[in-house]
Structure formats: structure tokens, C-alpha cells
């Protein structure tokens, strides 16, 4: 995935020269320490990984098999074993709980699909327009980057104000442009979906821009010169040269954007606190609500585990399909 990681350096050999000065015992000790060294360096990070990732994850899987509600919260180790009950409840689509989880998952997938597409389209548009030495390229890129640098909650708060019915700039502008009544509730009902997409695209498209600009920079310019000699116009160059050359960049970019969007909690939380309207009921806030509002941690954990499995399948499937297509091309 990463350039630095893929170019594996050869094993480091310690002090190849000076055999006369180093005694054999010293050399052995040195070789030993060098073999242990990477593990020593990794140790602290590994310990914390264990502490914040591995143990909580195993615990999470564990409590998904427990009947863990508010009665057992303080002494959750004594909570009764529930087997697969939590999982059964989460995927029982004839009950309200299962059905609302399914609905939330569908909303989240639609949300991710729209956001990733919009971000990519805006990103490729911006990157293409800035591809050659345009005047003001640097300052423009800096301006475009600001939304990405802004704390997530401030972005969401600004948009919440802009989208508010009476005092918001969106309704005000629509009214001035005679494009609507100017009395739309953007944060309620189905409109909430549009709002949450807007906020997320606004803050994430600069990442697509950055990545695509960097990707385009690594395409050799003589390829374009050759294409021009062959009489290819700008659109043909884009279709036949830029896009194929960007395939590996796109593969990672789309995946990262998808995972960030799918797992996002901060934007819906800042816009709607913990009770979003159904059209913006993203899955992470849905699980959050099921766990902390009703204090049913067993169910919440089962849902999180299902979510992780889902993402695992999607990611592996995506990588397999896109890698194969790249090799075929």
C-alpha cells in the first residue's frame, strides 16, 4: 500500500569489516542484539497496540455473547452468557431492532457512495484544472485545503447554521435567487441526508484533491508531449493517459474515503447530537445510540462486530476486484 513499505530493505548486516579487532564473542553478542533490536524498538508500540486495540477488541467480541444491559453494567463480568442471542436480535429483520439496523446500514452505504463519488469528482476536477503551472496554483491549493484542516465539529456547526431554516444563508440565497420558498427545513426529514452529504463532501474533497494532484505530478510530462504529437486532444489525453495512470492512486483513495465516510461519527453527532432523523441515521451513531441510550452493551457489541465483518468483506472484495482489473488492463 505504502511506497515506503513495499520497498523492503535487505536485512541489515552489522559491522561487516574489521574482523581482526572484534573478538568473536563480541561479534556474537552484537549479532544477537541486532536480531532482538527491531522487537525492542517495536515493543512499546506493540504494548500500546495490545492495550488499545487487541484487548478491547477481544473484550468487545466477548461481550457480544453476553446479556449485558444496565443491570449488569457495573459488574459486567458476571453478566449471563447469551450465546448468539444478540446476533440473532441484530439480524432479525422482522423485529424493529433488526429492521432499523438494516435501514441504517442502507442509509450509510448510500451516504458513503454519494460522498465518495462527489469527493472524487470534485477532486479530479480541481486536480485537472490545476495540473499545469496555473498562476496562483499554490495559494489556491492552500485555500482549498482549509476545510480539511478545520476541526470536524466546527465544520459541522458552521453548516448547521448555514442550513438553519430562518437564519441560514442557504435558504436566504435560494429565496434571493428565486429558486425556492426559502422555508425548507434542511436538517429534518429526508433533507437531513442532503445536509450531511454536503458537510462531509465539503470537508473531505480536499483530501481527494491532494491525493490526485500528487498522483498526477508523478505522471511523466513526456507522455503528454508524446500524446500531443500524436494529435490527442485534452479530453483524449485525460481519458487515455491520466485516468489509467491514476488507477493505483484511485484504488487506495476510494477505499480510504469509503472507510472514513462509512465509519464517521463526528459529523452526524455534531449536526444532530445522538438522535439524527432516519435519513441521516448513520450506522456508527445508530450503534452508539443502541448502546448508550438503552444501555444494551451486548447488543451494541454484536452490532459492532457485524459491522467490522461487513467492512472486512467489502475491503477484501474491493481490493481483490480492483487489483485483478488493474492486472488485466
Amino acid at each position: 500500500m505504502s511506497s515506503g513499505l513495499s520497498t523492503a530493505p535487505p536485512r541489515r548486516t552489522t559491522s561487516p569489516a574489521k574482523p581482526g579487532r572484534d573478538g568473536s564473542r563480541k561479534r556474537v553478542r552484537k549479532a544477537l542484539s541486532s536480531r532482538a533490536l527491531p522487537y525492542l524498538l517495536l515493543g512499546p508500540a506493540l504494548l500500546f497496540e495490545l492495550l488499545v486495540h487487541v484487548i478491547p477488541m477481544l473484550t468487545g467480541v466477548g461481550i457480544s455473547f453476553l446479556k449485558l444491559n444496565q443491570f449488569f453494567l457495573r459488574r459486567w463480568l458476571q453478566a449471563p452468557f447469551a450465546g448468539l442471542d444478540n446476533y440473532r436480535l441484530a439480524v432479525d429483520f422482522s423485529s424493529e431492532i433488526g429492521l432499523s439496523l438494516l435501514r441504517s446500514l442502507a442509509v450509510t452505504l448510500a451516504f458513503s457512495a454519494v460522498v465518495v463519488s462527489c469527493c472524487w469528482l470534485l477532486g479530479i476536477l480541481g486536480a485537472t484544472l490545476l495540473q499545469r503551472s496555473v498562476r496562483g496554483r499554490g495559494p489556491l491549493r492552500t485555500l482549498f485545503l482549509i476545510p480539511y484542516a478545520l476541526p470536524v465539529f466546527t465544520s459541522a456547526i458552521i453548516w448547521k447554521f448555514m442550513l438553519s431554516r430562518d437564519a441560514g444563508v442557504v435558504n436566504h440565497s435560494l429565496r434571493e435567487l428565486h429558486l425556492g420558498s426559502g422555508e425548507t427545513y434542511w436538517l429534518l426529514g429526508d433533507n437531513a441526508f442532503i445536509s450531511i452529504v454536503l458537510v462531509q463532501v465539503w470537508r473531505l474533497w480536499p483530501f481527494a484533491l491532494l491525493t490526485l494532484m500528487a498522483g498526477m505530478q508523478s505522471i511523466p510530462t513526456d507522455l503528454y508531449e508524446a500524446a500531443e504529437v500524436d494529435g490527442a486532444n485534452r479530453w483524449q489525453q485525460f481519458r487515455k493517459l491520466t485516468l489509467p495512470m491514476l488507477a493505483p492512486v484511485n484504488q487506495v483513495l476510494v477505499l480510504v474515503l469509503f472507510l472514513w465516510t462509512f465509519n464517521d461519527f463526528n459529523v452526524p453527532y455534531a449536526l444532530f447530537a445522538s438522535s439524527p432523523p432516519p435519513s441521516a441515521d448513520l450506522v456508527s451513531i445508530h450503534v452508539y445510540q443502541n448502546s448508550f441510550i438503552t444501555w444494551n452493551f451486548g447488543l451494541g457489541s454484536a452490532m459492532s462486530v457485524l459491522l467490522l465483518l461487513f467492512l472486512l468483506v467489502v475491503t477484501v472484495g474491493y481490493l481483490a476486484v480492483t487489483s485483478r482489473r488493474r492486472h488485466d488492463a
Partner: protein
Amino acid sequence: MHESRSFRAIRAVGLTGLLIFTLLPLYVMVSTSIKPLGDVQNQFRWLPSVATIRPFIDIWSTVPLARYFANSVIVSSCASVLSVTLAILAAYAISRYVFRGREVFRLTVLSTQMFPGILFLLPLYLIYVNIGQLTGVRLNGNLSGLIITHLTFSLPFSIWMLVGYFATIPRELDEAALVDGASPIRVLFSIVVPAAKPGIVAVLVYSFITSWSEALFASVLTDAKSKTLAVGLAEYSTENAVYWNQIMAASLVVSIPVVAGFLLMQRYLVQGLTAGAVK
């Protein structure tokens, strides 16, 4: 390269559109922050009726913003310094040595990008409650617990980015020092770290920013005293009126430090953020 007139026109229109989309919310934030309350309670107006700095004074008393600010500074600094320190050691091992388990560790770090934060939140919350009962050390409802949980996202990302930076430092540099008899640890701290300094600062900034923005863990693991900005800012709108002018002033105040940091380190951040995708 030849540029047709139509392409130039498209470029002007496209860039202007993107610029308006980007700048409109920023303009709304800045202009609203200097409006009197009356201006934000009725219809939106593009310009303030009178410009005032009152909102910037009032924000500190409407909610305990200074405390939330301090909490955020503490949590974000500790979490980012801790994760970058751990990441420097780990990234050095990964980028310079081949060892058993290297690939497993690398993949584990990468795959944490995929995990929903909520998966860690529930168990961590329960573990904290347990630790509190067993040892009397309270980890939920204060900053130390929050700092540890922020490592769940900042540590893997720091390792990932730093491996990329270390890979750009010519290996001849530290190999020469090793041949001269310097210990690997010395090589790391007197050669690799100084050479990768901009990259390290960039990772520090990035991890500070993500920590500054984080609301999921903060909403559960903090109490009234230990709230961070990501959670505390909501309090401006739970009062009798919604003080939009103060909210925007507060948003501006809490954004400026991180945006400034980001833009200052822009060059190196871009390099690190895109390293994973490009090539």
C-alpha cells in the same frame, strides 16, 4: 503545452465554483462572529449591521470555554506526543529491518483504519469502569483515559506516515554511521530523526488535529469538568437562545491554532498523507 481558449474558460469557471463552495462557509463563520445577537436571530444578512467584538468576549463566560480549551490542549498534546514517540521507534524498526512478524505488524496497523471506533469504545468504557472498581484509579470521566483511547486512531496513523518519511531518508546515511561504529539507537536519534524532522512535526500536527476533532470517545469518557471542545461547543445552543454569533466566534477561536499548524506544515503533510496512495 498548448492551451485552448475553451479550456481556459472552463478552468476559470470550475475554479471559481470550487472556490465559492470552499469559501462561503468560512465567510459565514468569520462574518457571523462579529455580528450582534440581533443579526443572527432573524433572516440571514451578508454583512453585520454593526461590527462588534462582543461575541469574542462573551464566549468565555457563556460556557466554560477556557476549561474545555485547556482540556483539549492537554489531551491532544499528550496523545500526539505519546503516539509519535512510540511511532518513531516502531517506524524505524519497520523501515530499516527485516524481521519475522514485520508484515503481520504492518498489516495490523493498516487494518485498524478499517475498524469502527464504536467497536473499541464499548469495551474500553467497561474496562475503565472495572479498573476503577478494582484499583480506584479512575480512567473514565477524566483526561488520562481519553488520552489512552485517542491512541486507538493516532498511533496506527503515525506509524503509517512515519514509515513513509523514514523510507525517503537515504539509507547510505545511517549505514555509514553504523560502519563507523555508532549504535543503531544513536543512529536513529542523531541521524534519522533529525533528517526526518519536518515529517515528524507534520505527523505530530496531524495527530494533534485528529485528536482535537474527536467526539465519539470524548462524549462518553468525559464529565462536566473534563469535557473537550468537540463536545463542549454544543453547549452554546442548549441555552435559552442559540447564540450563533458566539458559536461562530468560538469556532473561529478553536480552529485557528489547528488550521495554522496544518497550513504551516502543509508541504510535509501532503507528502505524508499521499505517500500511502501515490506510487
